[in-house]
């Protein structure tokens, strides 16, 4: 039903953007599948890493709607074993950035985690695990799951109620502007 991918033209802009954000050369990949073979999360995804790579080579927008790009655990297995020295995790990272920008996020929970995490870092200088956990519970609507674990941890003092804010927060937040510089 019109689902075939048009191969006539490769979206060079998207491809270049992925290469810029990830620092990886997409055409170095010859699709041997070793990344997919070793990837711990691939069996639970919609498409495996080498298909992500292939779609990225086309500059296919379809890849932006994939779950895989959000669920990469950044464990480095693919990069360690890749015969062509490609850091596939970086490619997934770049794709998820673009996917968020384009509003094509396939895994909202993963995106929320990322957002909350960065928010926590930016506001405090460090991550406050408890507020992160609470935010995630809200996002995943799994309010009661893992309470058996959470409560004892809380009681042991492992989840301090208030996060530690670093002193030099002002200067720290300046670092978040580094990107604009890099772009210039």
């Amino acid at each position: 039903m019109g689902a075939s991918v048009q191969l006539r033209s490769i979206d060079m802009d998207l491809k270049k953007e992925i290469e810029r954000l990830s620092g990886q050369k997409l055409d170095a990949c010859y699709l041997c599948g070793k990344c997919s073979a070793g990837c711990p999360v691939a069996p639970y995804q919609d498409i495996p890493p080498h298909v992500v790579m292939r779609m990225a080579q086309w500059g296919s927008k379809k890849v932006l709607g994939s779950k895989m790009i959000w669920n990469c655990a950044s464990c480095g297995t693919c990069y360690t074993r890749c015969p062509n020295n490609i850091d596939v995790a970086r490619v997934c990272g770049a794709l998820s950035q673009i996917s968020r920008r384009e509003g094509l996020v396939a895994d909202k929970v993963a995106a929320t985690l990322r957002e909350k995490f960065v928010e926590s870092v930016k506001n405090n200088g460090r991550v406050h695990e408890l507020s992160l956990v609470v935010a995630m519970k809200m996002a995943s609507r799994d309010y009661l799951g893992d309470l058996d674990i959470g409560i004892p941890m809380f009681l042991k003092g492992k989840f301090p109620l208030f996060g530690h804010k670093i002193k030099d927060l002002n200067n720290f937040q300046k670092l978040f502007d580094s990107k604009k510089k890099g772009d210039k």
Partner: protein
Amino acid sequence: MARVGVFICHCGANIAGKVDVEAVSEAAINIPGVVYSSHQKYSCSEAGQKVIIDAIKENRLDRVVIGSCSPKMHENTFRKTVQQAGLNSYMLEIANLREHVSWVTADKDEATKKAMDLVKAAVGKVSFAKPLTPGQVPVEKRALVIGGGIAGIQAALDIADMGYEVVMVEREPSIGGRMAQLDKTFPTLDCSACILSPRMVDVAQHPNIRLLTYSEVENVNGYVGNFNVIIRKKARFVDERICTGCLECMGKCPLKKKIPNEFENGRAPRGAIYVPFAQAVPKVPVIDKEYCRYLLSPDPDKVEVKEGEKKPKRKCGVCAKVCTQGAVDFNQQDELISEKFGAIVLATGFNLFDHSKYGEYGAGKIPDVITALDFERIVNSSGPTEGKIVRPSNGEKPKRVVFIQCVGSRDEAKGVPYCSRICCMYTAKQAILVREKLPDAEIYVFYMDIRAAGKGYEEFVLRAQREYGANYVRGRVSRIYESNGHMVLKAADTLVGMPVEMDDVDLVVLATGSIAREDSVELANTIGITTDNHGFISEVHPKLRPVEVPREGVFACGACLSPRDIPDAVATAGAVAAKVGVLFSNDILMSDPMVAEIDPLKCAACGACVSVCPYSAITMEEFRGKKFAKVNEAMCQGCGTCSAACRPGAAQLKGQTDEQILRSIEAVLQW
């Protein structure tokens, strides 16, 4: 004053279409030294050449510039032309108006201007040219073949059959090389030993071939037609002239089951005195001095003996005792042999990638993960398991056999970037051999691409899949680990686009790629030639001169050039023999006259040229107390590095002198 004639070629429309040849020709007459200028349709045609010859004669020209195509095309043609007109053939310079001007420039005016500049440069250069004459070198019609694998064997036999003497040097105790280690060959499934052994025997029995096994080349000096080579014949401790090859000694060696046999890839033992395999040529054992108890025990004559103590006796020596011929000679020493050759043939073969670099495949430590070469020995009826395919860990028959291709090959991260060319085929062959010996086994082949471009190759791979039931899965395996006495494989089937896992695997065979011999760079340095960045011998031109290397008189064949299979190795060996034959058909060689010369009167004896010469062609001489450098013209390759290094300008490359180059620079910029 020079009398230069300029001839501008239209090359049909090739040059004239972009360059205003008339204008160039007219302008040329104003260049200092030019007394004649014309243009013509096709200078290289017979008519065109006649115009040149006539013009030279009529105008008493002593130098010629031809503005035409690249000198790489017609320099030789035109050299002959000017020679016919009575000039020295080196009084010619070509301005490259086609490849460097008309074909690469968009604008007509600019092309014309550029063409004029190039003509000026050529006039500048040729104005200071001097007549050159080639030197003469006699040819020693004997060939050295380094390496006794199938390529070396073929080359040696072919050269010897032409009637020339051949010395074959092999560093192992027997010739045979890698091919001797193989069980069957693809795609015909011939027994490798059955087709190789007769060739080995031919080498041993050929009246024109002298075989030096257990020997290595130490040093190569000289030049084409006249190489001086020093060969180290390692002490064998068995006299080849006396030994009858009964091998009685081998059976009695107390270490006979103790030392891993290299021929069996370490999967079967040998003794300290051994022949590597049954069909070895020569069938004369060697004693391995790293292990032999006699040779390792201290020499009684050299041990200080305290008073009252008995002199120690040397240990063992059983082999010498059982030898009825008295062929064992523990006092043998390495022997240095110096020989002259006219040509050198390299056939040093290849090595296999060491898969211990693949930590994800167990780094070589999982016993049931073996290499394809291990498999060849295991499946061979004279191998360590007498041809029974078994798991090395427990000796049981494997039920599930997995082949993994591209181990080390096409892997820039841990191995080599190139394709090893033979693995697809030998893997298919090994899959077939598994099916023949183990009808019930499951066979899987993990591959990336099947490269089966050869006569009958594709059909062979398809047979492995269709008739022999090898299951081909497209994807690279990521990890192998042991679990419950078997192995688990993590892979992907890229064609269905999902990860796959396979457990209860009994045997994994890795198609390890071909790599250069570990000492290939060292050998290349010894011979004074180059290797590529993987250690394979570089050829002069990969397409047009595929078996010649950049040192004249040296040739290479087989897998020392790049990974290749047996037919290609044999074909290149034949090609080398033909090249050697061409060389030896000359009694005397004409050498290129564009070599360096050193003016002894100008030489400051600083030695810079001696030091920079890449071909060791310059030496320091002394005459009546004055030192000066001297070029061996036969060794000089005409690179001109000495000329660039020489401060007083004593070293000059003929045909490319400082004067010529400076004048051509000036001509472009000032004239």
